[in-house]
C-alpha cells in the first residue's frame, strides 16, 4: 500500500465533510463515493454517521449494496461510525424490517440503543489500540453492540453512567466500527488508526 492511501467516504447522506477532513488530517487522499464506479477507485472506505435507514434505502436504490458487500468480502478495509457501525454489522436490532446492512463484522448492533436525542451524550472512552489517553466519545442517538462473535475484538466499552459496560468499539481484521463520532471532536487518533490499518494491508 502506498504512503498516501485513497480512502472513500460513502456520501449518500451524513457527516461526510467531517470524516473527509479527519481522514485528510490523518494523511489519506479522500474521495466521496456515491456510485459503483467511484467505489472501484478506493483502497478503503469510511461509512459516516447519519441516518442508517436512509443510507440503506439509497444504497439499495442505486445498486451500491452488492458491490459494497463484494469489496468488504474481498478484504477492503472499512471504518464506520454510528450509522456506519450499523452498516458494518452482520445483524441489527430495532432497525426497519426492510433495512439492509453491508455487514462484515460478526456482531449484533442495536440501533438507537442509548435512546433519543435527549439521551445523546459525551464521555471519555478508553479505546484499545489508541495511545495518549481516552478519546472523547460523542454519542448521538447512538447504537451499541449487543454481542460480538468469536472473530470480532472489543476495543471499548462505556466507562460510567447508566450504560456502563456496553460495547461501543469493535475491530475485526481490516474492519473498524465505533458507536461514537470521533470526526466531531478534532481529535484524529481514531482516523490515524484506520489509515494505519489501510497502510498495513
Amino acid at each position: 500500500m502506498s504512503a498516501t492511501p485513497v480512502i472513500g467516504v460513502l456520501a449518500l447522506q451524513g457527516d461526510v465533510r467531517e470524516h473527509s477532513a479527519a481522514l485528510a488530517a490523518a494523511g489519506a487522499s479522500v474521495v466521496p463515493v456515491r456510485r459503483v464506479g467511484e467505489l472501484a477507485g478506493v483502497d478503503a472506505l469510511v461509512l459516516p454517521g447519519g441516518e442508517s435507514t436512509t443510507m440503506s434505502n439509497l444504497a439499495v436504490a442505486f445498486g451500491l449494496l452488492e458491490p459494497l458487500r463484494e469489496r468488504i468480502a474481498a478484504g477492503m478495509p472499512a471504518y464506520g461510525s454510528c450509522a456506519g457501525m450499523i452498516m458494518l454489522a452482520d445483524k441489527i436490532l430495532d432497525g426497519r424490517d426492510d433495512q439492509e446492512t453491508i455487514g462484515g463484522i460478526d456482531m449484533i448492533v442495536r440501533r438507537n440503543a442509548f435512546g433519543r436525542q435527549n439521551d445523546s451524550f459525551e464521555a471519555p472512552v478508553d479505546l484499545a489500540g489508541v495511545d495518549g489517553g481516552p478519546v472523547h466519545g460523542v454519542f448521538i442517538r447512538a447504537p451499541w453492540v449487543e454481542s460480538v462473535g468469536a472473530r470480532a475484538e472489543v476495543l471499548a466499552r462505556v466507562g460510567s453512567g447508566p450504560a456502563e459496560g456496553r460495547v461501543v468499539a469493535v475491530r475485526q481484521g481490516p474492519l473498524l466500527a465505533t458507536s461514537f463520532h470521533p470526526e466531531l471532536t478534532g481529535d484524529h487518533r481514531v482516523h490515524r488508526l484506520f489509515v494505519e490499518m489501510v497502510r498495513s494491508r
Partner: protein
Amino acid sequence: MSTASPLPSSDSPETGTARVKRGMAEQLKGGVIMDVVTPDQAKIAEDAGAVAVMALERVPADIRRDGGVARMSDPDMIDGIIKAVSIPVMAKSRIGHFVEAQVLQALGVDYIDESEVLTPADEVNHSDKWAFTTPFVCGATNLGEALRRIAEGAAMIRSKGEAGTGNVVEAVRHMRQIRSEIRRLTTLDDTELYAAAKELRAPYELVKEVATLGKLPVVLFSAGGVATPADAALMMQLGAEGVFVGSGIFKSGDPAKRAAAVVKATTFYDDPDVIAKVSRGLGEAMVGINCDELPESQRYANRGW
C-alpha cells in the same frame, strides 16, 4: 461545527451539550426532513428515505387556508408519530413560546423548530434555547438573523423561504442572501469585522467565527417552498446542506413517489441525469401560490427578528 471548541473535562456522561446538539444536525446533512400530520404520513416519509420527520397538526398550506392561531401540535398526535417511526422526530413551537418548547422536550422530540409558520407568542424575544437539552432549529432570512438565533442557542439554521406556497423563490432569495453575506465576511480584515458585527446586529465572536470558517458554525438547511426534486437539488446547489419539505409532498398527487424522488435528488443534487430520471411520472405537484400576491400579513418569513 467548530472542531476547535474545547472538549469538556468531566469523566461522567454529559447530555445536552452544544456538541451533541449541533452534532445531531451534522448527522442529518444531505438528507430530507418532511412535514407529516399523521403516523401514516410519517411511515411514508420513512419508507421514502427521509432522515427525519416534522410532526405538526396542519401543513403550512392548510394553516394559510384555515387562518386562525397556529399552535404547537397535540401531544397525542406527536406521540403517535414518535411511535410510528424509528427516525428522528421534530416538532414546532411558536416563536418565544418557551413553555410549548418545554412540553416538546418533555415529550422526547429530537429537535424543536421555533417556527415562524406558527403564530408568534412573543413579538420581541425568541426562546432562550440554551436552557434546553433538546436542540433547536430556527429559520433565518439573512446572516444577522441566523447569528442572533445561534447566539440564543439554536443548533441548526434553516433558510425560511415562504412556507406553504410551493414556490421556491423566497427559499432561493434567503439562501443566496445568507451565503453571499458569509462570503463577504471572509473578505474583511479584523478591523472591518467589528463594523460588520454592528451592521449584522450579531455578536462579534460569532461574526469572527463565520469569517474564519467561511460557513455558519451550525448546519444550514433550506426550507419554505420546495415542491419538486429539482427544487431540492437547486437549494443544494445553492449551498444548503439539506432540505426541509413541508406541504410539497403531502399536497401533491403521489406523496410516496414524490418523497422518494426528492430524497434521491437531494443526494444526487449535482447529477442532472438522476434528477431527470426521478422527476418522471410524479403526478401533480402542489398547486402553489405566487408570493407577489401574498399580503404582508400572510408572509411568514417576516415573523421573527
